């Protein structure tokens, strides 16, 4: 029994055909480190603003980890819940566009039919430059 659990645990990252690697996998420890939080905040531009938020993330991961208990030996991974659907192919005709005015209305700042953005990506401040936040 324990051998099978160990085998499933080892199998997960090796997987079948190319699968995505995840840098945020805490290796089943359930603890999210400050480095992982900082990494996620930069990648996804989300704000884990409180300790409760981090705790909720840890619980979510633990919940998803229950999947590892399932025996998937010899089962092809499902790549898409749409796998039985037909991918619709559209004819190569021009049927939309020409609505610059409408689109530009969504923008806070506009210059002569261009959207306006800051000069470049503004890097987030480093962890130690931020407000002190009690990551445990």
């Amino acid at each position, binding site marked *: 029994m324990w051998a099978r659990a160990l085998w499933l645990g080892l199998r997960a990252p090796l997987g079948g*055909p*190319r*699968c*995505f690697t995840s*840098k945020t996998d805490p290796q089943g420890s359930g603890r999210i480190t400050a480095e992982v939080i900082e*990494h996620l905040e*930069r*990648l*996804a*531009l*989300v*704000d*884990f*603003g409180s300790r409760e*938020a981090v705790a*909720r*993330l840890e619980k979510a991961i633990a919940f998803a980890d229950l999947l590892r208990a399932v025996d998937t030996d010899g089962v092809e991974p499902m*790549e*898409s*819940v*749409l*796998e*039985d*659907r*037909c*991918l*619709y*192919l*559209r*004819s*190569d*005709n*021009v*049927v*939309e*566009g*020409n*609505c*610059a005015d409408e*689109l*530009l209305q*969504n923008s806070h*700042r506009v*210059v*002569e*039919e*261009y*959207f*306006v*953005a*800051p*000069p*470049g*990506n*503004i*890097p*987030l401040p480093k962890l130690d430059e931020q407000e002190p936040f009690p990551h445990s």
Partner: protein
Amino acid sequence: MAAPMLRWGCRGRRWALAWVDGGSCHRRGAPTGSTSNRIRGQSSLAQQPLRTAQKPRKGEHKWAAVVGLEIHAQISSNSKLFSGSQVRFSAPPNSLVSFFDASLPGTLPVLNRRCVEAAVMTGLALNCHINKKSLFDRKHYFYADLPAGYQITQQRLPIAVNGSLTYGISAGKERGQVIPKTVRVKQIQLEQDSGKSLHDDLRSQTLVDLNRAGVGLLEVVLEPDLSCGEEAATAVRELQLILQALGTSQANMAEGQLRVDANVSVHHPGEPLGVRTEVKNLNSIRFLAKAIDYEIQRQISELENGGEILNETRSFHEKLGCTVSMRDKEAKQDYRFMPEPNLPPLLLYDATSLPTDADPQQVINIDQIREMLPELPSVTRERLVQQYGMLPEHSFTLLVFEELWKREGKTPGQIVSEKQLELMQDRGALEQFCYSVMKDHPQVVMDVKKGNPRAINKLIGLVRKATLNRADPAMIKEILEKQLSL
């Protein structure tokens, strides 16, 4: 739980290539001592530093460079990859943008059939295996010209894999021969183009035009089988001709329809591969060769002076003729690839697997596309050489102008005889030419007889000129040597 913050992350850049052992450039590696192999008439300033690097320093053995290319070609189609807005080079800003291209909530991608056909055609032309099932993924990074915050691409399972691209390098001034070389095609994938950013440094802002956002791209990834700027430039040129012959892309680098990024590293043959750098912002084939050769030389100099190469992205500065680091403060990008949840797998069929009751508009038959492939440039060149007795290097030049001449209503055969491009068959006439050239240049003849090895090349050159380049240089040499009783 978490509230999205409206700030900006970092520009995403391309991912890693798998390296395999690289060979050495034909010009440098040959222990057999072949002569310089330059495409006739072309000279590159970057060649000079390479020669210097070849002189052994501190007893150092030779360097070998490894070059891998990622090429993005804009698909020639009426509408975009996942939306029905128009594909056009110049138009008023944001006038060719649909709600989906602007990433408005609630919009969904709808795949353009023409783009899939273009990808299959290109894959077949490059001898690829076409994957009957391919998948779409999201590649996430933040930048103002990527409104969705991700690009739809094919990272897990692209539409075509394991192909090859054959190109020809001129070998030696006298020979006029063309050496065929091959670079392996790792994969071809369909993906979206991003919009365009115009940087207004004066007012500290960026102006964004999304006309290009969502245009279909073919990304062609080449294995690192290339070893210098000339090989890379020639391979890209050949790919350009193929895409133009197929009609899948106009591949005009000046208009941004063909973009190339190069991955460059150096190592001593037999030792493990070196750290690679990525070179971007290459706007022409000439600059592509220049930038790669500069980067190879820079890496060699750096390593020979005891420095190290950083795994970074560099930009090529045309005016300075050098590469400059674009290094962001942030560490390596994590693109958080995930399957595109709104698109089922793309299934392709062939004659045997085609479902009988299928709507022809909704299925793509690989065999049918294969039958529709036009004659590829390499085949045309071969045909010109065989059918009209043309010299191989002329077939390269001729092909480039083929489009022009087609419009004038002439056949290649007519052009060859009009321009007198056939190989000179009459040996007697050739002997006459040799004799008169020698008569007109007694000094050169004397140099040859004195034993100057380069003098005979001068004579050969003069004879070639006199025959309007119609004679085989090897035959000229043989006749001259006979007439000089060497």
